[in-house]
């Protein structure tokens, strides 16, 4: 046996042992790497893609900043939910991709992402005599202007029970008052008259210098439980930064002096995404930068709300419904894994059986090379740059398919070898001639699969529902590339072990069928 062959054999065995150490156990980290990473379709979870809507007139640079902030905001909201390895990424310049492994409540996930989390404080509009203004006042008024001319912003009227917005009153750029809904569409005035008109007109709460008080001045928000004589009540403790504290106290002082306790002009309207979550009475003239939002909510709701306030407002709006939404339950994913493993093992066994029956001894060696191949591939899946290959169902399919294709090079070589043996060459010469002659065909034929994989990879990168395509392309590519090495180097080295031994004389071992 030539010395070179022994060295190659030792190298192969070392690689095999190292690869096996990386692969097993399959779901644990080895060599500082985590277990095989599974795609959403196998582990279960939620996949959302949103179109981002930028406010009009935003420059490219600011768009980028807004995107980064929006992603950080969604990230911090989701972090509180204990989702393992969520993915929140920019897709293109104006899309956001959200993947939540193991999370299966689609509606909850959408709410988490879509809520802009815009917190604002409003107060009731007063006319020039200091009396509160109601919707009926506007409907009955023939004056085409706001009662409080100093405040030019929108008036909001909400359902007294749910706090949901009913109508907004805006002044357009020509100075005409318009009734619109939340989406900016005109609202029929006659319809408004039919409903309750006893709704206070909420205007933005502003500090003395005109700055509106919003959630962006918050430094802290956390859920609390207050136990009082009425029982346990959930609330949200908030803390302002210095500027917010000043503005808040200016508003508090104004409302405190606007009317006696219990009147609507003394209430502070707390609005989240245009919905009034509560309207507490102002009890003091100064709050010193701290406050508490009470409302009709459970502790769970208070915690979600605090999370939302803490993570801040989204700088952009997300278009509803999402461009793409997908959900797979973990049980279905586990079932897919089970079935793929079965398919892989059975496929592997049948292919090995076929090779052994047809090619005898070389078939046995090819089967060994195939097992070697499978272990190397699985190791590569774990070690692939970027934290391993994310295995999807289609990716597993690509791997199993590559098992069938991996023996292609062996078949080419063995067929050649048989021909060379028939012409009366010795085993060693036949092996080398077989490999040399088959090489050009092996190289050429794998090249086309590489081209196809490259195009598939591109396709996977450019379509939203990309999981299947990319996974398949990557596993097939790795599979075919490695199979060239294993089928050629490994099988050749194994075969050379028999050169010069007595077995080499028994040609029946090397081909089942004689010409």
């Amino acid at each position, binding site marked *: 046996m030539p010395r070179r062959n022994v060295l190659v054999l030792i190298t192969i065995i070392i690689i095999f042992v190292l690869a096996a150490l990386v692969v097993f156990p399959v779901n644990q980290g080895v060599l500082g790497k985590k277990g095989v990473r599974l795609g959403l379709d196998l582990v279960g979870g939620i996949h959302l*893609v949103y179109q981002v809507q930028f406010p009009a007139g935003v420059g490219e640079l600011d768009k980028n900043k807004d995107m980064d902030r929006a992603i950080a905001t969604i990230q911090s909201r989701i972090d509180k939910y204990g989702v393992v390895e969520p993915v929140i990424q920019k897709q293109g310049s104006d899309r956001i991709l959200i993947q939540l492994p193991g999370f299966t409540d689609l509606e909850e996930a*959408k709410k988490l992402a879509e809520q802009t989390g815009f917190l604002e404080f409003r107060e009731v509009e007063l006319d020039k005599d200091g009396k509160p203004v109601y919707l009926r006042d506007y409907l009955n008024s023939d004056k085409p202007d706001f009662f409080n001319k100093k405040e030019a912003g929108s008036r909001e009227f909400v359902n007294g029970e749910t706090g949901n917005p009913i109508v907004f009153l805006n002044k357009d750029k020509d100075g005409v008052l318009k009734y619109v809904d939340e989406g900016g569409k005109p609202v029929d005035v006659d319809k408004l008259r039919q409903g309750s008109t006893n709704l206070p007109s909420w205007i933005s709460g502003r500090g003395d210098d005109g700055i509106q008080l919003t959630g962006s001045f918050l430094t802290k928000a956390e859920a609390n439980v207050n136990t009082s004589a009425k029982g346990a009540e959930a609330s949200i403790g908030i803390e302002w930064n210095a500027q917010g504290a000043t503005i808040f106290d200016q508003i508090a002082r104004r409302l405190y002096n606007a009317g006696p306790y219990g009147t609507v002009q003394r209430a502070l309207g707390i609005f989240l995404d245009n919905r009034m979550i509560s309207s507490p009475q102002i009890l003091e003239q100064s709050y010193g930068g701290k406050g508490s939002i009470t409302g009709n909510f459970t502790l769970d709701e208070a915690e979600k709300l605090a999370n939302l306030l803490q993570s801040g407002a989204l700088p952009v709006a997300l278009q509803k*419904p*999402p*461009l*793409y*939404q*997908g*959900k797979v*339950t973990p*049980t*279905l994913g586990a*079932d*897919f894994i089970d*079935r*793929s493993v079965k*398919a*892989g093992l*059975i*496929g592997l066994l*049948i*292919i090995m059986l*076929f*090779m052994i029956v047809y090619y005898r001894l070389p078939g046995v060696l090819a089967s060994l090379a195939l097992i070697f191949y499978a272990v190397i591939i699985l190791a590569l899946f774990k070690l692939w740059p970027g934290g391993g290959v994310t295995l999807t*169902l*289609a990716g597993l*399919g690509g791997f*199993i*398919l*590559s*098992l*069938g*294709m991996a*023996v*292609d090079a062996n*078949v*080419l070589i063995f*067929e050649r070898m048989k021909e060379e043996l028939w012409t009366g060459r010795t085993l060693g010469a036949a092996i080398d001639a077989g490999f040399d002659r088959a090489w*050009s*065909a092996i190289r050429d*034929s*794998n*090249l*086309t*699969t*590489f*081209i*196809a994989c*490259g*195009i598939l990879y*591109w*396709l996977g990168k450019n*379509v*939203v*529902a990309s999981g*299947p*395509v990319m996974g*398949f*392309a990557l596993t*097939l590519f790795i599979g075919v590339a490695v199979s060239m090495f294993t089928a050629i180097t490994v099988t050749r080295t194994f075969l050379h072990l028999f050169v010069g031994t007595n077995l080499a004389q028994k040609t029946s071992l090397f081909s089942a069928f004689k010409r």
Partner: protein
Amino acid sequence: MIDIVSKRFWLLSLSGVVLVICIVAAVVLGLKPAVEFKSGSMMTVSFAQPVEQAQLKQELANLGHANALVQRTEGGSFLIRVRELSGDEKVQLEKDLADKFGQITENQFFSVSPLIATETVQNAGIAVAASLVGMLLYIAWAFRRISKPFRYGICAIIALLHDVVIIVGVFAILGTILGWEIDLLFVTGVLAIVGYAINNAIVVFDRIRENARRGISSDFSVVVNSSMVQTLTRSLNTSITTIFAVLALMLFVGSSLQNLTMVLLVGIVAGTFSSVFVAPLLLVVWEGAGWGWKR
């Protein structure tokens, strides 16, 4: 040695008949696009009590989804495809189904907007076009050394189109009978087949090239025949091992990958036939041996 070349009329006719059937099926029946390509919502649901497919379809029609597609999958669950549902509509639909059939479990849900669907179709089209160009360039490169690269190239391309047409035809028929729709996995399968099937043609042509150089016969038909016979076992064996892998996937993984595995199965069978028989036999015809029709 078996004489394959003399039977070329029948082998090519067989291929021609299958092609005609597939072209007619594709033109008349057409392909049905899945939600990825035409937008809409798709869900996999299972019920605690046994439910008939027809019952479910009827109930969906009653609920205003007359065009809903219902397909039974493994483990007694159903794949339902409807137009794009809003969040509220989806909750309502599941509630209505639960009212009618009892406890319902949603295992999978996908919803694709029209914008994404249009993009996906465009990108899939670009990918298919790019792969065809890629294969053309590859063929031009692979045959650069032989005397008539153009003829070899055209025959290989005909073999390739042959496979794609048969895949499309089979899916047009499956779409009509079983309601199968084409999606990204279908395109993935087609691209993989385009890359795979051409390999066999390359191997046969490679051998023709080698045998012609060695001058085993002055008759081109004889050169091609012995090249075909020499490479036949190899081509069949590599296809068989790959088909084993595909069948294992079909049997065990089932409907989730059905489009991919079916494309691969049909593509490998058609691709093996076209590259082992059609491409070299067309070359023989083109080199002046005629169609070989004998009474």
